[in-house]
Each structure stands twice: as structure tokens, then as C-alpha cells.
């Protein structure tokens, strides 16, 4: 994959705007963000701009970050929980260059965390902003392709069809098969797409200490969940919402109750499950936690030293 930044941008160091966007665009995005915060879960239309990266790279999230970021911010970017994918590295480099901000992989040190499809395992704290890159912001789109109709459904709180669809899912699969982009209701009013995060992360959105902002570039929508806001995954009395459970802990750090990725080790079917959140896994290992694959010697050493 090629880096998303164009030649022109890297050459004309002095000629681009702080955080790339011009002030008028930032103002328009900022106004949309304020409305989004005031109406939790409601999708605010905005005039999305072309960015020097393809849509799949999270142009909505990048525009939201560009509109809020200041010189004193510390930025973390994750892609499926990892800080080191091409996408995450490119976006970090983009803001390090255009805004001159410090970047980090450490969740607690970041003031802004831009994410593609995960919420960090380390609980977020007050003062942090989590910016989601959203491909499809409309949770009712699969039921109704027309924007005018879905907008009407949100306006009238007509969410019955959504429930029917989820219930059919149960009838067909015995459980709710939707494991990503599992719809939530925000503060008892708007049904919202939490972006394609695994439903494992849905409970982290509820009453979070951090402000959560969502940007969809191609679909030109911004929405928000303020801190301390109720975010409830849709479910049924006889089929309550459940997150995924993993039968084994992380093979590297031994963490339980975290989201794990399957990693293929060899061509003989060997595989392991490891934390999707790379920073969480690394900091646990740095603290001496050892998963099955790493053995438990260092923990013993540590105990002996006390």
C-alpha cells in the first residue's frame, strides 16, 4: 500500500493549513460537532471535504480530528486495536506533519484517540476524545435505502422494523448474529450505529468518561455521544444482549475479558489468540504478565525479587 499523503503536500511544508483543513471548513465541522453533542446519537449532515487519502482510510474521522486538534494535543491512532498498521501510522504521520502534534501509542497519555473499529481496553478518562472513523453511519440503511425515509424514521422514532430484523436474526440463528456495528440506543432516543466496532466494545460506550465523536466522510455525517451518556445495545427480554466470550486468555499477556484476534502461526493449523489492543498487551507484558505462549518465568523472578 502506498502512503496516503501526496507528493505535493510533503513538498510544500509551509503552504498547507494547520491540521490541513482551511479555517472555513474547520468552522463548519466544529458547528456540526456542537450540534451532534447537543443531540446525542443524531446524525448531523456536514459538507465533507476531499482529503489526501482514499475514503476507506477514514476521511470522516480525519476531518473531525483536524477540526478539534490543537498544538498541545497528544494523538493516538488505532486500526483494529493496533497502533502499527499502515493506516494508523499514516494518519499519525499526517497530523504530526500538518499540526506538529505529539503522538503516542499509550492510551492514558493521549488526549485524542482516532480509531478504526475498536475501543481501547484501558478505560478512557475525562478530557479524552475518542474519534471514530465511520464507513456507514445509518443503522437503518439495510432496511431502507432512501435517506429521506430513514431520516423520517429517526424523526418519528420508528424503530420497530429494526427490532423485527434483530428478532428474525435470532429466529434464524438462535442468537443475534450481528457481531459488528451492533445498533445501540442513545439516551433513550436515537438508534445509532457504533461504527463497525465489535459488539464486545458496545458496553464501553455506555457512561464513558470520554467524549465520543463519529465522522463519516463519504456519507457526510457527524454524530456524537457526550461523556456520562446512556448507550444501550438493542435487545429483547428473552434474548438479552451479550458480548462475545473468548474461551482462552491472550497467548502473550494472559489477559482475560479483552477482545482477542486469531493469529495463524504456521501452515499446520497452529494458531493463537492475542489481544487486539496492542498497547494493552504490551503494557501488560511490561508489567510482567505472561501468556501461555511466553511461559510464566518472568513473573516468578519478579516475585522472588520482592
Amino acid at each position, binding site marked *: 500500500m502506498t502512503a496516503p499523503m501526496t507528493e505535493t503536500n510533503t513538498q510544500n511544508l509551509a503552504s498547507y493549513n494547520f491540521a490541513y483543513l482551511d479555517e472555513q471548513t474547520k468552522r463548519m465541522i466544529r458547528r456540526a460537532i*456542537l*450540534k451532534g453533542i447537543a*443531540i446525542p446519537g443524531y446524525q448531523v449532515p456536514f459538507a465533507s471535504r476531499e482529503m489526501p487519502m482514499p475514503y476507506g482510510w477514514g476521511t470522516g474521522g480525519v476531518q473531525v480530528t483536524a477540526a478539534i486538534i*490543537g498544538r498541545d494535543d497528544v494523538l493516538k491512532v488505532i486500526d483494529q486495536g493496533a497502533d502499527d498498521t499502515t493506516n494508523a501510522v499514516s494518519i499519525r504521520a499526517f497530523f504530526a506533519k500538518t499540526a506538529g502534534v505529539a503522538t503516542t501509542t499509550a492510551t492514558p497519555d493521549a488526549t485524542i484517540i482516532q480509531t478504526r473499529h475498536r475501543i481501547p481496553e484501558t478505560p478512557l478518562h475525562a478530557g479524552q476524545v475518542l474519534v471514530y472513523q465511520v464507513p456507514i453511519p445509518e443503522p437503518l440503511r439495510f432496511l431502507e435505502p432512501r435517506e429521506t425515509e430513514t431520516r423520517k424514521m429517526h424523526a418519528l422514532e420508528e424503530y420497530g422494523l429494526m427490532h423485527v430484523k434483530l428478532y428474525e436474526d435470532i429466529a434464524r440463528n438462535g442468537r443475534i448474529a450481528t457481531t459488528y456495528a451492533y445498533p445501540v440506543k442513545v439516551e433513550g432516543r436515537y438508534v445509532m450505529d457504533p461504527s463497525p466496532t465489535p459488539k464486545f466494545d458496545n458496553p464501553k460506550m455506555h457512561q464513558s468518561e470520554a467524549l465520543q465523536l463519529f465522522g463519516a466522510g463519504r456519507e457526510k455525517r457527524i454524530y456524537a455521544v457526550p461523556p456520562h451518556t446512556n448507550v444501550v445495545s438493542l435487545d429483547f427480554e428473552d434474548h438479552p444482549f451479550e458480548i462475545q466470550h473468548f474461551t482462552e486468555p491472550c497467548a502473550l499477556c494472559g489477559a482475560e475479558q479483552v477482545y482477542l484476534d486469531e493469529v495463524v502461526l504456521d501452515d499446520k493449523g497452529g494458531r493463537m489468540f492475542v489481544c487486539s489492543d496492542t498497547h494493552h498487551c504490551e503494557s501488560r507484558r511490561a508489567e510482567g504478565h505472561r501468556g501461555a505462549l511466553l511461559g510464566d518465568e518472568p513473573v516468578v523472578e519478579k516475585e522472588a525479587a520482592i
Partner: protein
Amino acid sequence: MAHSTPAASIYEGGFADPVGASQTVFRALMDAMARPGTVHALPAVTAPPAPLTASASALIATLADADTPVWLDPALTKTNAIKDWIVFHTGAPITAYQSEAAFAVVAAPQSLSALNGFSLGTQEFPDRSTSVILQVTTLTEGVALTLEGPGIKDRTTLAPAPMPQHFSEQWMANRQAFPRGIDLILAGPGSVAAMPRSTRLIRKEA
């Protein structure tokens, strides 16, 4: 007497550092909006003609442009100075109609008799509403308002003054219209707080 104030001309008193200042002001406002009732420091980055305050002018300079009509209360329209300052520094058109305003700036909140003349947006586009900036002299020493809702852990209090007449009743009516409604931005001296439409006002038991 020719004493020169920073705003002797409407062409002066704008942002010296537009990029940095507007980002700083916006972040303070975003935090205030995300955590209703909390008070955030605003740097003195503008010097507008009186009675427009530094805080209110910094907010309007950060938010308004040619796409956002601004309504000014009678206290701000006694002369053309404030209207001209806003037009020069933001490019925003000034409107005489509350219902057309994207932003309203109110220098005398106690004289504002109604909140429902502003645009509340529509049920389908509740974002097409007026954000009302109230210039207040304090955010902590007025009559305490008890608030709850999104952005607030349990409950919080804010004590701005002066406030519009019959504010509790007006705010409850605004809240009833949700998701339609106005959002309030409270511009205090060197500070800002907010009450988005999602905020509920709790009546104190007598």
C-alpha cells in the same frame, strides 16, 4: 476626548492568531457543551466594541461566517458598531429575525422574554436551530440551577446571572421540544459554560 480603546475602529480587535485562537476557543466550548454546567476558561483573544464582551465576541468569531446569520439583541444594536464589527471579522450576515438566526448574541439576558422565537430546527433536521449566546456577568454567583442529562455524572449546578425571565419554565418548554430546541452558550467573564437542549433542569423542592 480621544481616548483610544482597542476597538476604536471596527477593523481592529479581531483574532491576532486566528488559527490558534479559534481552536482554543472552540475546544473550551466543545468541552463546555460535552459537560453541561462545567465552566471553562476562555482566553482574551478579541477586543470588540462594548457592550459586546471579549468572551461572546471570541465565540462568535470562532463559530460564525457567511453561512450563519447572526441575530443581536436590542442592547447590541443601539449603534452600528457591533453589527459592523461582526460583519467585518466574520463575514456573517446580521438578521433582524430570531427564527432565521444560526447564532444569537444577547447582551441583556434579563430582557429576553422568550426563547421560543428562535429556530428550534425541525423534527427531521433538529440541527437547524439557533445557538443562543448569553452574555452573563457570572457563571457561579447567580441563582443556582441544578442540571442533569447527557454529559453530567449524576447532577451538577451552574449559577449564571443575569438570566432570561421565567427561565425555568422557558427551559422546560425547550426541553419538551427535544430533539428540537435551542442550545444555550453562557459567555461569562473569561469563561464559558453551556446548556445544550439535552440538559434537564431540576426543580428544587421548596
